[in-house]
């Protein structure tokens, strides 16, 4: 399948500072891609290049297999992190303007504006200026303005920041709806709960480099596979371990927990056998599946070590 958007070894610098270093990524039709990274990692720079706003210094970007061209922006939707609307313009005029900018003709644009105002129950506010409506409503207008033309690819920079929880849920709902209709979505965020809920694929960017990417299940099972958490009611300090635990801690409800790394010679079956044959009863046994948050923190920490400098 041809990726809807694909970056090949993209580089971008501002003056002496390299902001994107050899970044490659692929987004297949219907996928939702989460771009993660600490502040200043270079997410927005990458997103701007994908959204045709700026050009890479080197490397290539393809849209549906063709080299990216500004005309492709008509088939994309884009919402930047820093958002704004014309304050003196009415809600309906504003939506009409953006729909026409994205290539819809007057009649199509009017029909779309009517559809979305009705769907968002904002018909009564259509003629109100942006400065006269609530911030929450303006947020809805902002989001709708970039999806009215039914884009094939939707690029959102920190879509959940600054939105109230009700609107954040609405956006989530709309993103999933667009995905069902075949739209591919790429968004940057630092909210891991949204990533787990929405994304099929993630990429982690740190200091301008992509340090990890892949499907969520792949990532979770990849580098982090074979770890098991075992819990007891009492401390196991004086016991001989089959392997050295990689981590041990006490939970709030008083369980003594240990995490073991299994291997070919010492698999989960052996671990369980050992645990169940101890004098203290085993009360917990589970494979450890890291959260995206843990993966993110671990990855960023790892790339902060001097070997990666």
């Amino acid at each position, binding site marked *: 399948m041809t990726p809807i958007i694909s970056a090949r070894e993209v580089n971008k610098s501002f003056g002496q500072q390299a902001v994107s270093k050899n970044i490659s990524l692929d987004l297949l039709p219907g996928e939702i891609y989460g771009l993660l990274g600490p502040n200043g990692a270079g997410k927005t720079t990458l997103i701007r290049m994908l959204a045709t*706003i700026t050009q890479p210094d080197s490397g290539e970007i393809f849209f549906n297999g063709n080299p990216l061209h500004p005309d492709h*922006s008509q088939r*994309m939707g884009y919402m*930047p992190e820093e958002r*704004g609307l014309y304050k*003196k313009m009415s809600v309906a005029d504003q939506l009409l303007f953006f729909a026409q900018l994205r290539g819809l003709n007057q009649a199509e644009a009017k029909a779309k504006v009517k559809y979305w105002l009705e769907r968002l129950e904002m018909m009564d506010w259509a003629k109100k200026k942006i400065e006269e409506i609530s911030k929450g409503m303006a947020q809805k207008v902002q989001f709708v303005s970039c999806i009215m033309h039914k884009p094939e690819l939707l690029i959102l920079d920190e879509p959940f920041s600054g939105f109230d929880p009700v609107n954040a849920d609405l956006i989530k709902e709309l993103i999933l709806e667009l995905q069902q209709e075949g739209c591919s979505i790429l968004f940057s965020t630092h909210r891991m709960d949204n990533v787990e809920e929405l994304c099929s694929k993630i990429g982690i960017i740190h200091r301008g480099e992509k340090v990890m990417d892949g499907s969520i299940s792949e990532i979770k099972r990849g580098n982090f596979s074979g770890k098991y958490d075992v819990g007891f009611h009492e401390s196991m300090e004086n016991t001989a371990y089959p392997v050295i635990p990689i981590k041990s801690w006490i939970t709030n409800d008083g369980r003594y927990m240990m995490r073991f790394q299994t291997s070919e010679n010492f698999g989960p079956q052996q671990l369980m056998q050992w645990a169940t044959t101890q004098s203290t009863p085993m009360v917990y046994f589970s494979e450890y599946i890291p959260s995206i948050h843990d993966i993110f923190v671990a990855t960023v920490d790892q790339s902060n070590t001097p070997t990666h400098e």
Partner: protein
Amino acid sequence: MSNFSNIWVIFKREYMTRITNKTFIIMTFLAPVLIAGFYALAIYIAVADETESEIHTVLVSDQSKQLKLSDFSNYKLLPAPDYDYPQQRIDSAKAYVNRGICYAWLQIDDKDLTVLDSTTLYSEQAPSLTQMESINQWISNQSKEKQLLKFGIRPTTLDSLDVSGSVRLMEISEQGVASNSSSGLKSGIGFILAFLIYMFIFMYGAAVMRGAFEEKTNRIVEVIVSSVKPFQLMMGKILGIAAVGLTQVAAWVLVLIAIVFIGGTVVGKQKMSEFKQQSSAISMDSTFASAGLPTANNEMSANSNPVAKMSALSDFLSGTESIPAGEILIIFVLYFIGGYLLYASMFAAIGAAVNQETETQQFMLPITMPLVLSFVIAQSVALKAPNGSTAELFSMIPFTSPIIMVVRAPFGVPISQLLLSLGILILTFVFMVWLTSKIYRIGILSYGKKPSWGDLWKWIRQ
């Protein structure tokens, strides 16, 4: 979507939001009224003879014994009581003026009036410059009359020797047709048109700058430039605002025509009868004057002579014959648009480059300087010598040509010069748009530190 349709969408938004703005609508209808009122006031002040109606008594102590006391201006001259000693005369002058017995005391101690060096006017309030001038003139006229009589020449004989009327100007066209002309009228038209262009560039150039700046600070620009190229956004904005300006000027012209038309029909009927009376009185006066007889106006100086005024007015009006109205209009519209486009692109780049309105000031100077300079040149050189080499030079430089050329337009500009100047203007405009769009493209997405001239140069080279 093609480049053109993108520019069109931006253009439409700029035009529609501005034209439906309440301030625009109010200014469109109020401004002509204000401008008309302003000019009416200016003309009234210039035309109305500021004479004080109050009659002032001036006591004249004439030691030359040569002066004939006659009233002039608003002065009533009476002989002052005579005293033998100079000090007595000064003391009583002070006393008379202080007690308000007279407005002023004119002490003439010169025996020979051809040289005034000990003639003094004692007054509590300093008279105006023109009032002092009229007193000097009064003494000088009387002195002259005395001298002339010595040579046996009567003043009326001298008056009859004065040349009446003024040189009429006839312009010969290339086809050899002569037509009445008026330099005054041409200068006036040229100057008004230049002023309109000057105003338009400043007003709407600033609107372009503010528009770009607002889009940048509102953060809306990033969404827009993901659909249109910054160049298209800039052009759509510049052209949209130009259309707003042209609409406004067209509306002003219509409103002004309406004011003149309505005002003309209402006032015209009243004034017509007054005018008829006045002109018959003038013709009577001039008949008397030519016959060497005294008339009611014979004390007026020649420059306020109503005959001269009327003939100047008729010359002025008949001068419209030689005004190439169609040509002026075409030149005006071309330079109006060309000048605006050239400057608006620079204003747009500034608006895009800065982060705060106060930062615009450092970049404004190089833009406003040529504009102000061309307006100064328009007022001096171009009006005095519209076809001189200075005027020709500045009507070729694209930054000054829009203003200088329209000043020259009523006097007739050779077509070769027009084409050359327009060509240079268009090329410069294209170059400037290319240059400024580079600044605009980077500036509009650059936030944070205050840009320097070095930054702008870096953006151009990127």
